[in-house]
């Protein structure tokens, strides 16, 4: 049973990682706390749900669409809210995006009601692969594989492409980046879009096993906070490993210490790890 | 002359890179010691080691306080070293940008008082000495680089140090302004301070230094009075350049 628990932990870990990668782009790389990150995820889930209920599209298939929709939401967020508070302290952006998160959350409630929505009968729904003594839930496996692939894609994009490096440069020094001929507004918008696309995709991967209601994403964003810090701000590889670590610690902690402690143990681990590595597991 | 600071076999590494290698020299009481060397020679690193920002890989830094008591300050925390009387500025300026010039300096002045009014009086003296009085209400972030450098010196002075370490405080100033700072430095010396100065501006360094120490690739390559250093072939080759040498010969 323990190995079963660990496997599940790893699977959830991958999903956490993708949500955290989205956050590490805005918070880690651009240094803007997007408090509406969880609501991005939420709208991604509703997008996937909508596509499923209207067109019977399996979330896995509609993933590009939900990613694209939340990409647009990200770009919109940048131009309408974030851009205007860039010059002020970081906490101002937090306040502004907090306002946005209220709008997004309650708009979801207005449109979809607060009733739980479930995406059922998906390709991988509640099916398992049996490997000897343990099971791997297919919906989890699909999510994990999807998350890993997307994370690696983002990683390559940031480190290897010109736009990716420009994102990092812009985050370090905005006006100098302009002097390099970088359209910083565009770069910020892309980053927010990309961050949105990450959670949009994560949402599509998650809906087969996550009931959707306006409040269901808050915890994900809190966990993403911890994962981003644990992996080192702005470090995408770090977010991936930290996501996995959190997934496994959550599962094992819950198993050994009792499930009411499963999140507390993550926070405790964070505090302990940071005593040894004050800039995150992978930060220097 | 008795030393205030004695640096012995100081070595500092960043990974493979030897930023300081086996450097030893003394800083004499009430003297002006200048530290020169090519870019990347390890001057700032040495500053950082002496002031506790870095813990040296090996070696020892000794300090004699006012009472003449010998103290090992190797790798002590910066604030503790400052309290003993050693203060520095930063090559890459770090003005407190949300504070006014006066407040920047008051922050330094609080080292010796708990009263705001006293700190303000102390700061005023420093403002006057460093010629910043007219700028005292400007926010740090609105200053030019040169002004910031001056604020840094003033802030360091406000802690009433015995030893003042200045890292390129004249960079970016024109000749006239450099003259002012040179005068300020000589003034400070006259008031009994000891100074360790890093500077690339030879016109400023040569006339005021009692002693010059030259670093290259982390190693000390020369030490001596200015005239001697100016004619040291190794220093000319590594640092001063032929043109400067020729020019200084002329004058």
């Amino acid at each position, binding site marked *: *049973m323990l190995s*079963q*628990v660990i496997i*599940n*932990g790893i699977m*959830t870990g991958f999903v*956490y990682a993708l949500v955290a990668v989205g956050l590490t782009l805005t918070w880690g790389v651009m240094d803007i706390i997007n408090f509406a990150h969880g609501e991005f995820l939420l709208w991604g889930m509703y997008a996937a749900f909508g596509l499923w209920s209207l067109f019977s599209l399996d979330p896995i298939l509609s993933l590009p669409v939900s990613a694209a929709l939340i990409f647009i939401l990200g770009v919109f967020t940048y131009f309408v809210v974030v851009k205007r508070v860039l010059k002020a302290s970081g906490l101002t952006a937090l306040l502004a995006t907090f306002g946005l998160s209220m709008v997004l959350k*309650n708009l979801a*409630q207005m449109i979809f*009601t*607060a*009733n*739980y*929505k*479930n995406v*059922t*009968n998906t390709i991988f*729904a*509640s*099916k*398992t692969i049996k490997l000897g003594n343990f*099971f791997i*839930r297919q*919906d989890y496996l699909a999510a994990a594989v999807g998350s890993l692939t997307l994370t690696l894609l983002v990683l390559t994009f940031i480190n290897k492409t010109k736009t990716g490096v420009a994102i990092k440069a812009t985050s370090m020094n905005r006006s100098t980046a302009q002097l390099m001929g970088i359209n910083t507004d565009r770069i910020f918008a892309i980053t927010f879009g990309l961050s949105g696309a990450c959670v949009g995709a994560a949402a599509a991967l998650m809906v087969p*096993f*996550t*009931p959707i*209601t*306006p*409040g*269901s994403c*808050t*915890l*994900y964003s809190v*966990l993403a906070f911890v994962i981003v810090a644990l992996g080192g701000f702005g470090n995408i590889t770090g977010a991936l490993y930290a996501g996995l670590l959190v997934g496994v610690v*959550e*599962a094992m902690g*819950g*198993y050994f210490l*009792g*499930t*009411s402690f*499963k*999140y507390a143990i993550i926070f405790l681990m964070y505090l302990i790890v940071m005593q040894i590595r004050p800039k995150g597991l992978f930060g220097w | 002359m008795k030393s205030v600071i004695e640096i012995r076999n100081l070595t500092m590494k960043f990974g493979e890179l030897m930023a300081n290698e086996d450097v030893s020299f003394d800083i004499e009481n009430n003297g002006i010691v200048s530290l020169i060397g090519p870019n990347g020679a390890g001057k700032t690193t040495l500053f950082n080691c002496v002031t506790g920002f870095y813990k040296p890989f090996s070696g020892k830094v000794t300090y004699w306080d006012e009472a003449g008591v010998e103290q090992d300050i190797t790798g002590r925390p910066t604030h503790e070293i400052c309290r003993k009387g050693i203060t520095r500025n930063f090559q890459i300026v770090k003005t407190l940008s949300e504070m006014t010039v006066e407040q920047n300096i008051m922050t330094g002045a609080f080292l010796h008082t708990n009263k705001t009014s006293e700190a303000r009086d102390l700061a005023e003296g420093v403002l006057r000495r460093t010629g910043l009085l007219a700028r005292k209400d400007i926010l740090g972030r609105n200053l030019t680089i040169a002004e910031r450098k001056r604020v840094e010196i003033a802030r360091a002075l406000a802690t009433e140090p015995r030893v003042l370490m200045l890292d390129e405080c004249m960079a970016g100033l024109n000749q006239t302004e450099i003259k002012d700072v040179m005068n300020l430095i000589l003034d400070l010396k006259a008031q009994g301070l000891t100074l360790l100065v890093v500077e690339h501006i030879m016109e400023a360094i040569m006339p005021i230094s009692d002693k010059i120490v030259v670093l290259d690739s982390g190693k000390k390559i020369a030490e001596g009075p200015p005239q001697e250093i100016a004619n040291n072939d190794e220093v000319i080759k590594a640092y001063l350049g032929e043109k400067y040498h020729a020019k200084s010969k002329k004058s």
Partner: protein
Amino acid sequence: SGGKTTEKTEVEKPAATDATPAEKTDGAEKTDPAEETEKEPAGEVENVKLGAVLPLTGATATTGANLKVAMEVAVDLINNSHDLDWDIAKNEGIAALNGAKIELLFGDCQSDATIASTEAANLLEKDIVGIAGAYASGFSAAVAAQALEYNIPMICGSSSSASLTDGKTYDFASVFNRIAANDEMETKEFYLFLQHLNEKYNAGIKKVAIAYINNAYGIHADEMFAQYAPEYGFEVVAQVAYEPTITAADTEAAQIINANPDVVFQASYIGDLTMFAQAYKAYDYAPKMIMCYCGGFQDASFAEVAKGLGVNYYSGGQASAEVLSDKMPVFKYVNEMYKTKTGLDIDGPALEEFASIILFVQAMEIAGSSEPADIINALRNNSFDAPYLTVGKIEFNENGQNIEMASFITQLIDGVYQVVFPLDEYVTSEPIVNQ
């Protein structure tokens, strides 16, 4: 009237001519407006104001919105004349008060106890004679604390924590009345049901386990679960608590599965319950029965989930079920009104909140007064008819607990809530025990 605001309800004075058009049009209303106008005692009788605090936004908004509809249905029944053989519905307004009508003011506690408290105070300042709400036990307690200070009666429909009426945890027993069965009653009922399954269907149930949400609701459910298991001859093999918000229930489910109980008890809200259900299914775990404390199980969307998973082993306490409509005309009528507004069949909590408004009126009818003190008196010293509930009666003890509310048990069979226990006259299906 989903889009109608509290303020408006309050502003609209009971002008003689257009007394309640809003309520009338959207209810399942049949009377003739013209006739109504004549009967109206031309604005002399003042409206009686009641307040209700509900979580209309935030984490528990899921249910709050529906509960509000249920209460509005009650108001409709009370204020207008309906073609139904039940005094409350037939009469227009409160007979004992010269046909005074009910005006119900809502406060949104945003799923936050502190806000519940300020919203309650706000309502209490507006001369209400009674207050209802507020779904989650924590919110109800916050509202009750305010009600106590104003000495205004509170009827709490659906909160189930035993502590609310245990007479020692809180100090508001004098004004507080709770309709829902508390978890203690529910637990006993569950064990009786299991014994019944063992006796009648040879189910062979011995080992029981519980998964419960770690809040006031779950903790008491667990307490009762563990306390009564030995008494009824069952062995507790696992007690798994989990955080009120979770992203997945796999670890929790794994611990249950590991203990391999015959029957699992769940004190879960709809989201967690769904995750558990999916996890059980994914790991091929099928207990003989899963007993759900009122909570997520009663949410209509869970019926879909269970149906989607193709499992029939979920049972739980319920105040009424749609399948009973034919046997209970009042219930049927109420359910229809509710359904036109929400698209859903009325569930337990909604029915209980509905009852809270009805009870206030019944109490006023008995007391012949709308004085809060009289209402309190009447509530405590009478037994009330409740033709919309299977038990048919409501009566409060000295701590404000409804002693009649023995909830009965429904089982989700092919996505339909079938009544399986205990009253023979209401049973609609044989229970199915998973072997």
